[in-house]
């Protein structure tokens, strides 16, 4: 059982009348890669800033290593942050930037240089050590910013959307650099992002936030396949959500009346009762397509609206008679194997066990 490195205990943060974080309770374990994800204004950055001591909680306690941190000043903490804007000092060279924190800690000059060069080397930017920050490329700056934080040898590294300024191909590269570093160093990474692909690609656990509250915490797989509520299901994207009323519940199977038709879903015992209103979600990649009406229960006839290619994957956007939008995601070569006439109605179907009932 790994130890809790950070505990948020009933944390509340407001700026004047604006509530940024409301009643937040969660733990961060030692050595885990945790991603905090949500739309802008959801309180994810405020959460990170509270960890660094840059914002003080309005109420509640933050514990790091079992120590209450509320009154510990930012410069007395061991929580280096990699900033969205990188925040490199323009009046210092790459190496001087990396040395900055060590200098503040009173590390002696020769030692400082040795450690800074070691990290610049590790991140593959040793040759740029004497360069002005303004002469470096985005990816090189990113590495300087990482080195500047990691040279402090922290137990926990905070990252605030660090890849948002990079080109798409560099993002993928940096993702693997980050995950490798995290494994190698065995330290905790707290990674704030609005990008689902970044969070899912790197994190052990993902915290989804909405309007200052935690909407769900779980592994990327859990969040993708079993979203806790409508917000998560919609935010995680590429999900089909259907809402309706429960007509009957038999064993572990409920029948729902929705404007798009009647559907059967698997339920846990006592999860739903008759006449409840309920929503369920089917991931876009679990929907089957066919030209004729399939011989199964959960089917909808749709008309194709548009399609979107992302490399080998294709997403179809369809609409049924009642105007509900459906998304279907599949391999491009599988779609062409089906030989569908995209002008004619297409039948969507899914198995009962693919449907996941949402909490309220």
């Amino acid at each position, binding site marked *: 059982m790994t130890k809790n490195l950070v505990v948020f205990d009933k944390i509340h943060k407001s700026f004047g009348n604006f509530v940024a974080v409301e009643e937040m309770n969660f733990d961060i374990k030692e050595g885990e890669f945790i991603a905090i994800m949500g739309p802008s204004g959801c309180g994810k950055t405020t959460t990170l800033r509270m960890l660094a001591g840059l914002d003080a909680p309005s109420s509640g306690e933050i514990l790091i290593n079992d120590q209450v941190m509320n009154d510990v000043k930012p410069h007395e903490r061991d*929580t280096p942050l990699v900033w969205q804007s990188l925040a490199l*000092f323009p*009046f210092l060279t790459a190496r001087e930037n990396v040395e900055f924190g060590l200098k503040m800690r009173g590390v002696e000059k020769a030692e400082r240089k040795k450690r800074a060069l070691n990290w610049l080397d590790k991140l593959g930017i040793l040759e740029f050590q004497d360069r002005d920050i303004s*002469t470096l490329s985005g990816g090189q700056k990113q590495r300087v910013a990482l080195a500047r934080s990691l040279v402090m040898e922290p137990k926990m590294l905070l990252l605030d959307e660090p890849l948002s300024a990079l080109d798409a191909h560099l993002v993928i590269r940096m993702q693997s650099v980050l995950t490798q570093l995290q494994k190698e160093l065995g330290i905790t990474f707290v990674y704030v992002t609005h990008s689902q692909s970044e969070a899912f690609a790197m994190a052990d656990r993902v915290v989804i936030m909405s309007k200052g509250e935690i909407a769900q915490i779980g592994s990327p797989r859990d969040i993708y396949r079993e979203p806790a509520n409508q917000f998560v299901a919609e935010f995680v994207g590429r999900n089909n959500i259907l809402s309706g009323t429960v007509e009957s519940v038999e064993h572990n199977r409920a029948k729902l009346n929705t404007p798009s038709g009647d559907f059967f879903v698997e339920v846990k015992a006592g999860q739903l009762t008759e006449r409840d209103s309920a929503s369920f979600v089917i991931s876009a990649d679990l929907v089957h397509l066919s030209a004729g009406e399939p011989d199964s229960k959960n089917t909808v006839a749709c008309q194709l609206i548009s399609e979107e290619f992302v490399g080998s994957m294709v997403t179809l956007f369809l609409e049924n008679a009642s105007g509900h939008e459906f998304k279907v995601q599949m391999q491009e070569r599988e779609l062409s194997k089906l030989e569908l006439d995209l002008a004619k109605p297409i039948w969507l179907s899914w198995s009962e066990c693919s449907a996941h009932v949402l909490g309220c």
Partner: protein
Amino acid sequence: MPIIVWQLAFFVGPVLFMVAMSFFLVKNYRMTEAFEFVNWAKMFSKGYFWSSYWHTVWIATISTLCAMCLAFPAAFALAFKASENTRRWAIFFLIIPFFTSYLVRTFSWFVILSESGVVNAILGTVGLGPYTMLNTHIGTLVGYMTLTLPLVVILQTVTMANIDRTLIEAARNLGCKPLAVIWRVILPLSKAGFIIAAVFCFILSFGDFVAPFYLGGSQEPTLPILILDTTKSGQQWPRAAVIAVVMMATLFTLAFTAIAIAYRKRSTS
């Protein structure tokens, strides 16, 4: 294009004329066109010219240091502690002194600084003084501050208000103590703006005639006072032109060097 014409007509033209005038001769109290170096040789050989020159450089330097130091706490508070709105109002109020004549503002110091003035009256109540402040270097400096301080506060405030706050937070995040942030981050980031503020302050003090004349009592004459004396005594306009050209050359060199330092790129080897 019109700007260039304007500059030529009203700046370059007069300056060139003044340079030319420094080579003119004065005969029978009348200026005559000539190209002689006698004025230059005369002025440069005078001990009083050089002592006045170095005195002016010295007191303008002290004035600049005083203004920069006095302005800093105010500018710091306005840039980092005050709200956007307060800062706007403060800058507006700092511009107001320029509405009234500098001469009037200088004369108002008489009431405050004279031996029977406000300051000595207050000090008198606790048994101190009276101190002589008028007709001393203190008087001159007070006058210079009247002229330069509002401008220096504005320039420093605007410079520091434009600093990216994230850089300050980043320094704090890396273990920099609150006070150390000032010289580790804020001052390096403010370099260009502060140098420009200092240059402005030096130029204004260096060329000011009112403060050393009325508040400083012109005991040790500064160059502007020397110009006045030179023109009054025997119509020596060409010699005054020599002083003026030397002053301009000094300020030009200073401003040029300072701006070069302010915007110097670090080596990128």
